[in-house]
């Protein structure tokens, strides 16, 4: 366990470093990209641009700029180029919105995928299996932004069942909070339900012929016990790893499309705006923020994996 923790920590630091270098490099190699001009404003004279460039250190060598930026990020002093707001505090402020969006959506998609995948596998070849698999393949064929827009159009504008857009804090009004987030949750969950239920179904079908299932039956367990304790439990393993990665990237801001369409002031919306403005510090911090969650949930899913499967040892 100690070895596992050390190796994980080392790979985490490496990944964070690599991520920051990659993102920094992407924007460094663009020939026409000049952040000083963006900061200085529209009508800046060349002298002002040069002054700004000097003030922010854009005239220094690349590696010095990189080191300075990293220092600012880790001391919580980095500001974005467009609004001069503190990036770290912006992300901290917006993170609860993303959590309220992603965590319930993840629970919905996990529960939905397990229920639908199980029904489909138990009734393999039947009408409900076929119907569910058609729905699943349709779910993975719709881009999230289109689904979000269609849901918004149909249920918010046309039918007025749900509020348009916007975010209500959980602490101020839990019912309104959920009411405002139903459509975003659905639009995130549909794709993943489609994907996970397909994977789960094929895992379940593979598992039925395994020896341990026959043993479980032979020792007299009921069909339900065999399914829940043995077949389903073993089929969930590959999903644990998938879920860790998907959940982590969404928490880190990969829900940017959903947050943009539903106008939720979360991390993803911030990232989308920063990308639109070519504002490097938020993009850089956002990418590292995501990488942090990827590493964290990678480790967590490995631990869950080891708990589910006693054969697995945590060696990193």
């Amino acid at each position, binding site marked *: 366990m100690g070895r596992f923790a050390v190796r994980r920590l080392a790979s985490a630091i490496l990944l964070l470093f690599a991520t920051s270098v990659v993102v920094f490099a992407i924007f460094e190699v*663009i020939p*026409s990209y000049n952040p000083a001009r963006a900061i200085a404003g529209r009508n800046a004279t060349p002298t002002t641009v040069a002054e700004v460039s000097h003030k922010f250190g854009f005239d220094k060598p690349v590696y010095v700029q990189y080191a300075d930026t990293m220092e600012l990020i880790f001391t919580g002093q980095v500001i974005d180029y467009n609004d001069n707001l503190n990036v770290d505090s912006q992300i901290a402020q917006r993170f609860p919105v993303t959590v309220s969006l992603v965590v319930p959506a993840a629970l919905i998609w996990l529960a939905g995928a397990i229920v639908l995948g199980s029904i489909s596998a138990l009734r393999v070849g039947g009408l409900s299996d076929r119907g569910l698999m058609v729905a699943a393949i349709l779910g993975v064929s719709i881009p999230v*932004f289109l689904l979000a827009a269609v849901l918004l159009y149909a249920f918010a504008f046309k039918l007025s069942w749900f509020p348009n857009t916007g975010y209500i804090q959980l602490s101020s009004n839990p019912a309104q909070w959920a009411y405002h987030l139903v459509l975003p949750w659905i639009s995130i969950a549909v794709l993943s339900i489609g994907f996970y239920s397909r994977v789960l179904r094929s895992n379940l079908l593979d598992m039925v012929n395994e020896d341990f299932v026959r043993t479980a039956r032979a020792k007299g367990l009921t069909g339900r016990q065999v399914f829940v304790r043995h077949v389903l439990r073993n089929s969930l393993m590959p999903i644990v790893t998938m879920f860790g*990665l998907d959940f982590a990237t969404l928490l880190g801001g990969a829900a940017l499309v959903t947050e943009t369409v539903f106008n939720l002031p979360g991390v993803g919306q911030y990232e989308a705006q920063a*990308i639109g403005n*070519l504002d490097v510090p938020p993009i850089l911090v956002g990418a590292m923020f995501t990488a942090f969650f990827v590493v964290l949930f990678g480790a967590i899913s490995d631990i869950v994996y080891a708990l589910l499967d006693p054969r697995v040892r945590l060696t990193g």
Partner: protein
Amino acid sequence: MIPEPDGARGGSEVVAGASPGGTAGIVITPGERVADPWAEGRHPPAIGPWRLAARRLRRNYVAQAFLVLFLLIVVACLLAPLYASDIAHISPNANNITGTVSVAGKMVDVVSPDGVPVGPTFGSHYFFGADSNGRDLAVRLLYGGRTSLLIGAIATAIIIVFGTLAGLLTGYFRGVVDMILRPLMELIWSFPVVILGVALGTALALGGIGPIKGNSLFIPAFIIGVVYIPYLGKPIRGEVLRLREQDFTEAARVQGMGSWRIMLSEILPNLASLITVFVPMMLAYSILLEAYLSFLGAGVQAPNASWGTLISDGLNYIQTTPTFSLIPGAMLVLTVLSINVVGDGIRDALDPRAQVRVRT
């Protein structure tokens, strides 16, 4: 995972006396007494994995129907210039904000004074309506389809070539190559596809790379290809790790074959079915990712259209002219759906147990 290579290099196609219906078997002439049907010379014909897959696919009518649908969409998109010049009489990028068009006998502004584009007319002009610049949506839909499909195809080609190469090299040589390439793949893999794609897309759309201009279609295609390489590279690597320990690889090594020859003539043919399964899947995901990137302004750049940019433009008018975004959306979903169904059919036919996954 992959059908056993009973004849990895063409030997699988030896099929003796298969009848056209595919029900090849033992031919017993009437009146002949056969004690042992499996006697010398009467073995049932061997069927290779590819022929078996083709036979399974022939029975999958759903997959065939969706293949036809996909081909129809492709042909329609390829005929876009013909539609533009002979039916709609307007080029895809021609603005017509002040023009009028007849809908059910009445003349209507293509774009109303308060900026709302006209909906479907179902006539030769503006069949699916107009966009906010008075451009013919049906024409742009077909041209946009060409763009989306072309980007998808180029990206898929990049993924297949470089993903296979990366998987082969890291799996076969391990050691130093693995130590360099694998962390690179892991890095791309653990990056959220959308964020990496969007950052690259915005950056490159601004400056271009070298001789390629910022609004070139090759930029999104290249980005999508790079982003998805690990999704093929990782499974290929796993399969190569398995294949390189097999007896036939050992035999080739003993015969004195070099590493490259073993990779190309012994291992690569055994990867063919895995790669085949990935082709439609990567095509579907590439087209979807292109739509995402275009939606976020990091994909196809104006004045070019793709299904993604059309949906994205149309979303601004979803309350007044919902067809503007829903028609390109339906086209995109139909195309991706048909590729997915055909891909599922191919996977089931080639390898019912294969498990592959991709995130967007």
